[in-house]
């Protein structure tokens, strides 16, 4: 058991460290603000061009085909340099990799990995949140196209997306999740209306809702077989629950470093409760870092993406919300200057216990799938 870098890992870390010295775009503290999103595409291109993106993905889609641990090193060095986190696209890439045909993979994955195409994920609906299988958006075959109608909501990055991964009902005669299929749907067409949603922290560049009214996509854009949509969705959300996949450790460590820098010149100016909140933010973030190391090491045995993802999601949520509380505690809400990034960070952290499956759903999964508690 060894937490230290191998020689290859150390060499990669050095190369990355040197590159970051010249290429840190100096975006604001985290992906919890609109300013980050304004510069995110350029940052994605920059990382990709230098060979620092998609570390564990196959070469033929633009990845580096290296062990997953290199993603963890990437996250550590981004955080140490105060650079923005890497774009979180792993769940999309893994979903298409696992369920798409060769044709689908070849057409869509390189553009996702190199940052040419931006995607959003059309799963949730106003009446289908935790109960995703009850969704009502439907796709009906019309010649060589599917015609899609329905209402998707809480869709991240829908306002800038070129494509949407849509989960829609294609068979009304089978129960719930069995009648769902997945599609890549081009966003720039008359049958689609996008409406940005303002999040509670005021940012408008993440959330949106998408109305499909006779939107069209080619039959060849179905990902997986008809009726395989639920399985693809489960692949996607299981990756969405893994902090190693998401790269969020970098985001949390960056915020914690900034809070430490705020307090360090005069710790005595802060009360015991503030310092306690800060200490817990440090400790929780360290926990996630070590936890990711553990999970990525387990992958060397081929173990991944089981119900343990729900444990990881719950741990990650606790970390993000502890960091959010520390930001609120140390910097304060800022009543005259609208709070700035600390208030944004804190308010954004409340979404972590909802997105990608609520904490309540994750606890159900941990209790029944890992602990084996009976359901009736």
């Amino acid at each position, binding site marked *: *058991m*060894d*937490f*230290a*870098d*191998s020689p290859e*890992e150390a060499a990669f870390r050095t190369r990355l460290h040197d590159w970051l010295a010249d290429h840190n775009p100096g975006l604001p503290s985290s992906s919890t603000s609109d300013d980050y999103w304004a510069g995110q595409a350029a940052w994605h291109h920059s990382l990709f061009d230098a060979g620092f993106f998609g570390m564990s993905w196959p070469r033929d889609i633009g990845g580096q085909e290296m062990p997953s*641990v290199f993603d*963890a*090193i990437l996250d550590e060095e981004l*955080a*140490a340099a105060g650079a923005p986190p890497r774009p979180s696209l792993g769940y999309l890439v893994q979903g298409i990799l696992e369920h798409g045909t060769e044709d689908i993979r070849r057409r869509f994955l390189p553009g996702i990995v190199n940052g040419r195409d931006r995607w959003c994920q059309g799963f949730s609906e106003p009446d289908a949140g935790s109960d995703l299988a009850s969704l009502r958006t439907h796709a009906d075959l019309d010649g060589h196209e599917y015609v899609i109608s329905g209402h998707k909501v809480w869709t991240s990055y829908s306002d800038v997306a070129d494509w949407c991964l849509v989960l829609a009902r294609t068979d009304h005669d089978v129960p719930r999740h069995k009648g769902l299929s997945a599609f890549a749907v081009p966003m720039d067409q008359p049958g689609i209306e996008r409406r940005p949603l303002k999040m509670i922290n005021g940012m408008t560049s993440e959330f949106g809702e998408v109305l499909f009214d006779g939107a069209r996509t080619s039959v060849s854009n179905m990902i997986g077989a008809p009726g395989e949509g639920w399985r693809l969705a489960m692949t996607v959300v299981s990756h969405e629950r893994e902090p190693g996949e998401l790269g969020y450790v970098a985001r949390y*460590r960056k915020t*914690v*470093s900034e809070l*430490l*820098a705020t*307090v*360090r010149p005069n*710790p005595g100016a802060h009360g015991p409760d503030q*310092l*306690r909140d*800060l*200490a*817990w933010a*440090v*400790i*929780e*973030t*360290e*926990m996630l870092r*070590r*936890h990711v*190391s*553990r999970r*990525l*090491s*387990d992958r*060397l*045995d081929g173990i991944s993406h089981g119900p343990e993802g729900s*444990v990881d999601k*719950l*741990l990650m949520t*606790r970390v993000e919300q502890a960091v959010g509380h520390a930001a609120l505690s140390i910097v304060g809400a800022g009543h005259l200057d609208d709070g700035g990034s600390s208030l944004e960070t804190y308010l954004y952290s409340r979404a972590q216990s909802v997105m990608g499956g609520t904490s*309540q759903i*994750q*606890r*159900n999964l*941990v*209790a*029944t799938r*890992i*602990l*084996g*508690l*009976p*359901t*009736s």
Partner: protein
Amino acid sequence: MDVRFSAEQQALRDAARRLAEDLAPQTVRDLDDTERTAKLDAAVTAAGWRELRAATEVGDPWASGVEVAVIAEQLGRRLADTAFVGPTLAAELRRAAGAPATMTAETVVLTPDLGTFATTVAGQVPAGAVAIDVAGASSALVLMEANGGWSLASVAMGEPARHVDLTRPVAAPSSPATLVDGQTTGIDAAALDRATALGLAVCCADLVGSMQGAVELSTEYAAERKQYGRPVGTFQSVQHLLADALVATEGSRSLALHAAWVVDALAPADALTAAATAKSYAARAAREVCETAIQVHGGIGNTWECLAHVYLRRALLSTDVLGGVDASLARVLDAHLGGPDGLR
């Protein structure tokens, strides 16, 4: 980076697991079964697990902090009522002092709050000092200031008592401290930091084991105990308590693994910070998890005969040894606010 256990570490874990499953108490009544505790003690003695931090011919420990932690976790999981953390720390201190290994079982004396190693002044041990983990031990080590560092001295102990932890008795020192023979080097601050990091790492592993055991005990109970005509484990309110307990255990495990590794892999001051980080997290988590175990057991959980409180009591002792939540938080803050480099 590859934090999987090696084949040897897996074999050690499996051996410790089997030993604990065979010989550790299954019920509260078992705690008074002296025949069983004698067998358990003999088995651990035969395995040589308490001497892993003693010096080899070249002066290194026989095994790293990882191996020690692997054993501690399995002992904690089954509430093994045999000495481990105390003798392990005694061996660590002897090695640090260049003192020969002892033929008799030995442990260490801590300050009254168990927060640090006890220090003797002119042979007198401060009032209230506590020898921990005294089962089978005939003496305990204290530190004696010498030349800007410390030497080792030894005390006899009074009757073992089980106040908090029913599985690992403590005792009061009962004699003046006498210098340990044959010490070749003083213990400096760095060596003491490393010994403290080791102690914290062992306690973190024991806490993880206790949490794991408490979750297993409660999950089994929740699946069997029926109310309203169905197992209480079918109710989401109970399921979520246990899910949170498992999550807290797994987070603690990740930090405890790291703490075990740092003991021999990082500079002592950094090892101590990492160990304190793990201890804060695991100690906070362990109280929550063990309280959950009592809650899930309901009325039965509040009776002496239920093992749930034995887990909580063991966790309370592990928590205090070499610094509990508050002391560990203070260590973490000092490390991160004192230096210029931020979060490293």
